[in-house]
């Protein structure tokens, strides 16, 4: 095939894409989604009802919480992004991956990192940096595996059969490059023993590097690659091109440019110099513009297809995902304003914000993509089309229960902590009293999380039976509305 600007491939041509690697990452995604969310439900139970810590060091909240965050972000989130990247990159570049061997080294390397995390974190081995807890030998392994992925990805780019890079590819590129830089810079440490190391940064510098990393982990692990997925799979599922391609590239550059500077909003009212706090705050507030540009571009892609949104669970998942993306990127800039942050910081409001992004945006866009994929890659109709709708409603109501209860809890805590009586003393001097009042909200959150997990279990069973079921006859067109 000759290299052309946008590389039209005639129908029926076999380019020879590697679909096996896509299926491998797909399977890993579903498995780790269940594990990560189950641990989420367990720690939610522990917060509401302390005996669930079981009195054993390995099962206490402090050790299981980083297990949850690592499992959902890097195991579920990582694998789902790799699934989408390996599938859509090959198709958008009209070529097979650069190296099948590197693809497999990437796959097995990433899964072994996850297993090592699942063993070391409950044992209490950690370097105590949020979202970068893993001890240094695992950090080295992550670096090696990431380089393998990078070579494979950019190798594929180099041998592409098209000149233009579709916007999803730009989002993937930012993910591959930025995560490498963030991981290496934040994890720089001097090893003392196999299990222990000392960071090269100290004090305020350490805090700044950590939250430059932490915020950009949100930006470049939970946002840009998922936007790439949105720009490929939403048009595919809706069967119409993205609303404005020009907006999409402006959205891309503005977003990656602004994100990098926003980290200090995690360090407001800290010892960080005022000007740096203000800088972080200003960039965070500006972030709303490209974020909403992306949201609108996603929603407007569905113009003229809203009748299908009512019946097609795939589009329903995607619409809710994009809406939650809009909500959390409105909430985030608000929480970055110093005065608002003074109320929100350290409260459950932050947890509500996190999960409206994580369950609403990351989770729902992933589910939509996975339902689309299982039918198109395995070429089978869903075993239980109605279950997909049930899953959608369980997840949506679950998110609402989770986020609303956390917002209420967070506002209550924040207001009670700072409330003063007429004499100018703390109105609630006994901290633990406020904590005890949170309990009903924690149970509601648990209910929401359990519903979300139940939906994910239904999805896994549905996929299992779909994949084992009979293949769709070649002549039959791909169903769009599955219920």
């Amino acid at each position, binding site marked *: 095939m000759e290299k052309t600007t946008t590389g039209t491939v005639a129908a029926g041509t076999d380019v020879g894409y590697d679909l096996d690697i896509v299926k491998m990452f797909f399977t890993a995604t579903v498995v780790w989604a269940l594990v990560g969310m189950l641990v989420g439900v367990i720690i939610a139970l522990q917060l509401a009802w302390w005996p669930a810590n079981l009195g054993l060091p390995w099962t206490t909240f402090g050790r299981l919480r980083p297990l949850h965050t690592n499992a959902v972000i890097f195991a579920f989130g990582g694998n789902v992004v790799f699934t989408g990247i390996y599938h859509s990159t090959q198709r958008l570049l009209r070529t097979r991956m650069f190296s099948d061997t590197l693809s497999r080294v990437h796959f097995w390397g990433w899964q072994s990192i996850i297993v090592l995390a699942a063993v070391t974190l409950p044992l209490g081995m950690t370097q105590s940096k949020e979202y970068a807890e893993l001890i240094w030998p695992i950090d080295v392994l992550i670096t090696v595996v990431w380089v393998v992925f990078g070579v494979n990805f950019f190798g594929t780019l180099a041998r592409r059969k098209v000149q233009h890079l579709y916007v999803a590819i730009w989002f993937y590129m930012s993910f591959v490059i930025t995560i490498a830089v963030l991981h290496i810079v934040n994890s720089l440490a001097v090893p003392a023993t196999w299990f222990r190391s000392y960071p090269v940064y100290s004090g305020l510098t350490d805090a700044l590097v950590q939250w430059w990393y932490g915020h950009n982990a949100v930006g470049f692990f939970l946002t840009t690659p998922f936007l790439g997925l949105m720009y490929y799979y939403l048009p595919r599922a809706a069967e119409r091109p*993205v609303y404005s*391609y020009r907006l999409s590239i402006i959205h891309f550059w503005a977003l990656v440019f602004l994100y990098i500077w926003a980290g200090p909003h995690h360090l407001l009212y800290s010892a960080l110099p005022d000007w740096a706090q203000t800088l972080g705050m200003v960039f965070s507030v500006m972030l709303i513009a490209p974020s909403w540009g992306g949201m609108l571009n996603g929603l407007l892609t569905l113009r003229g297809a809203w009748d299908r949104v009512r019946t097609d669970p795939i589009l329903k998942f995607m619409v809710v995902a994009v809406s939650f993306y809009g909500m959390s990127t409105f909430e985030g800039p608000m929480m970055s304003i110093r005065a608002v942050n003074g109320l929100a910081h350290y409260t459950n409001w932050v947890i509500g914000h996190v999960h409206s992004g994580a369950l609403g945006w990351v989770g729902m866009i992933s589910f939509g993509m996975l339902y689309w*994929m299982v039918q198109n890659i395995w070429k089978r109709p869903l075993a239980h089309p109605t279950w997909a709708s049930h899953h959608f409603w369980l997840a949506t109501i679950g998110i609402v229960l989770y986020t609303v209860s956390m917002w209420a809890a967070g506002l209550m805590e924040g207001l009670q902590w700072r409330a003063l009586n007429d004499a100018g003393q703390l109105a609630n001097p006994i901290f633990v009293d406020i904590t005890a009042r949170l309990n009903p909200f924690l149970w509601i959150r648990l209910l929401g999380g359990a519903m979300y997990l139940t939906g994910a279990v239904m999805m896994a069973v549905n996929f299992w039976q779909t994949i084992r079921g009979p293949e769709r006859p070649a002549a039959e067109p791909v169903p769009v509305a599955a219920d």
Partner: protein
Amino acid sequence: MNPLLREAAASVQLGWVLGAMTVVFLAVFLGWVFWAYRPKHRAMMEEIGRMPFMDGGDA
């Protein structure tokens, strides 16, 4: 120099750096918008937007 004065001088310099950065960033951004929305590029942009549908395949 008096430490207070030194700090003031540093913040004035910082102000210049931030001001210059703002101008450069804004210019790059506007240039980018201009490039993307040039009528000449319209057809090309729309064609790139259709790339997910032009690979003839099924999955």
